[in-house]
């Protein structure tokens, strides 16, 4: 191994340590019997998991987060795909403006987004409802879904859709049997990613959730009361859920570019 290779590997390892150390620490303490996160560690226990998941409000919060993630991901992915397809298929004036607007939401500070969502959803009478959070998370996820779908559509031979028409498929049918199957890896990947975004999202959810708390909102509320290792247990479950979703998304993105 050349010295430069060694330096590079050490550097890479350092980055991973830097990124994952806090989360791994939290995971370790979630199995630690001591009340406070200190070293040396106490004994191994699953007590915090048992306590945390014996509380009905934890289950409700997980249920809420799950329902919201599933719905918001479906809506974000549909919206993102349609937006990306419009860009792929049609040329029109102000297309640059259209794309810039479609990709804007992630650049808005979350506090502003949260406040704006709260004001807007209150007008609609949806603040504090699950529907309200789904709407907010759809807005936040759609640009990511669009970016992933655009990437896939750019790899599509534009003659592919026309070839389907030429062989007797109506435009709707061609969409169903050619464009969507072609984009399927991107659609699944966009779905997983936007679900993860929604599942983890705290700030906007905190503004609009009201009594229907999601997991991140509930974690904060528990923390405000006292420092409790149950948080580590809940956090570990949230982290693993999101990680699985993101890994699925990444695998699908990588597989489609390798082809």
């Amino acid at each position, binding site marked *: 191994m050349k010295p430069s290779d060694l330096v590079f590997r050490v550097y890479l390892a350092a980055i991973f340590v830097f990124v994952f150390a806090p989360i791994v620490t939290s995971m370790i303490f979630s199995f630690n019997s001591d009340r406070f996160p200190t070293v040396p560690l106490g004994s191994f226990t699953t007590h915090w998991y048992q306590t945390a998941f014996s509380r009905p409000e934890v289950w409700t919060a997980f249920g809420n987060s799950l329902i919201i993630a599933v719905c918001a991901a479906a809506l974000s992915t549909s919206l993102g795909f349609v937006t990306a397809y419009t860009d792929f298929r049609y040329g029109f004036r102000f297309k640059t403006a259209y794309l810039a607007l479609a990709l804007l939401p992630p650049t808005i500070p979350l506090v502003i987004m949260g406040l704006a969502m709260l004001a807007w959803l209150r007008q609609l009478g949806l603040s504090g409802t699950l529907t309200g959070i789904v709407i907010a998370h759809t807005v936040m996820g759609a640009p990511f879904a669009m970016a992933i779908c655009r990437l896939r559509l750019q790899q599509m031979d534009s*003659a592919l859709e026309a070839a389907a*028409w030429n*062989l007797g498929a109506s435009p709707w049918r061609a969409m169903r049997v050619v464009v969507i199957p072609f984009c399927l890896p991107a659609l699944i990947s966009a779905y997983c990613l936007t679900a993860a975004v929604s599942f983890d999202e705290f700030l906007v959810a905190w503004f609009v959730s009201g009594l229907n708390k999601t997991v991140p909102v509930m974690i904060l509320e528990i923390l405000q009361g006292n420092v409790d290792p149950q948080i580590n247990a809940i956090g570990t479950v949230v982290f693993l859920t999101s990680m699985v979703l993101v890994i699925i998304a990444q695998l699908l993105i990588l597989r489609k570019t390798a*082809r």
Partner: protein
Amino acid sequence: MTDQDPLVRFAGVRKSYGTFEAVKGIDLDIGRGEFVAIMGPSGCGKTTTLRMLAGLEAPSAGDITLDGRVMNDVPAHERDTPLVWQSLALFPFLNVRENVEFGLKMRGVSKMDSHGRAMMWLERLGLKGFENRRIDQLSGGQRQRVALARSLVTEPQMLLLDEPLSALDAHLVIRMQGVLTRLQRELGITFVYVTHSQSEAFAMADRVVIMGQGEIAQIGKPKEIFRAPKTRFVAEFVGRNNILPGDKAGQEIVVAADRMQVSADQPDAAALPAEFLSEEFAGTSIICYFEGANGEELKAQVTEEELEALDPAPGQRFWLTWAPEASHVITV
């Protein structure tokens, strides 16, 4: 409707994109069972013409008639005009058999029936045993044949081909030309073949349509066009021609390079003086390039033996002559 009526008729067909006119009013009849090549440089409107025939572009003016029916408002998916694409446009997420079955499935043919017909066409095109392969597991020539099978499986009365061989290696092009000509003869259907390649057009087509700048420049049998180009554009585009000033104003004389004779000594008959520039090997013969008295480029095709005998050096003076019957006159 009789068999003598043309299968396709373009009548005053135009296509414009904004202020740009891609096709400037063409009239063209294509007969049943005919192999027509539409040839021209890139941007001449040949692909647009083909796409209008397939319903992928709507004409801005004029009528396209197919089998006696005006097709202008018939959408692409309701026409029976399968197209073999330049990029082939095979569906990458379907295997070979599913690609071939696609057109049948869209037309509601039963699974059993379409399966059998797809297999028959795969076998006919030498793809037996490949039916479960993915598209990216096939060679260029195999993909070409899958694309053909996919278009022919619905037994259309006409097949459109848009530069289908442009992505293939030279030796495969010759082989696919053979496959295409034989298929067309056996099936007896009309082929409309768009290409920029002379060798493809002249080797396969019954009739060649030369297009330039959105207009039809000449229609004729390959040999007619090759030997008797009507305009300067065709003479320059097709073959290797010398275009010389004519005897009368407004006329020019075309002499093909292979009918131009080179001699080192001034012959008795009228001859053009020319300075040797360079030579180019073109298979078994050699093209010699000269500069004429007025700076024009002249070319003559010679054999290897002739080249050895001439042994030309750059700047050396030669004389070019041709038999009277080797030339023909075009009006400018």
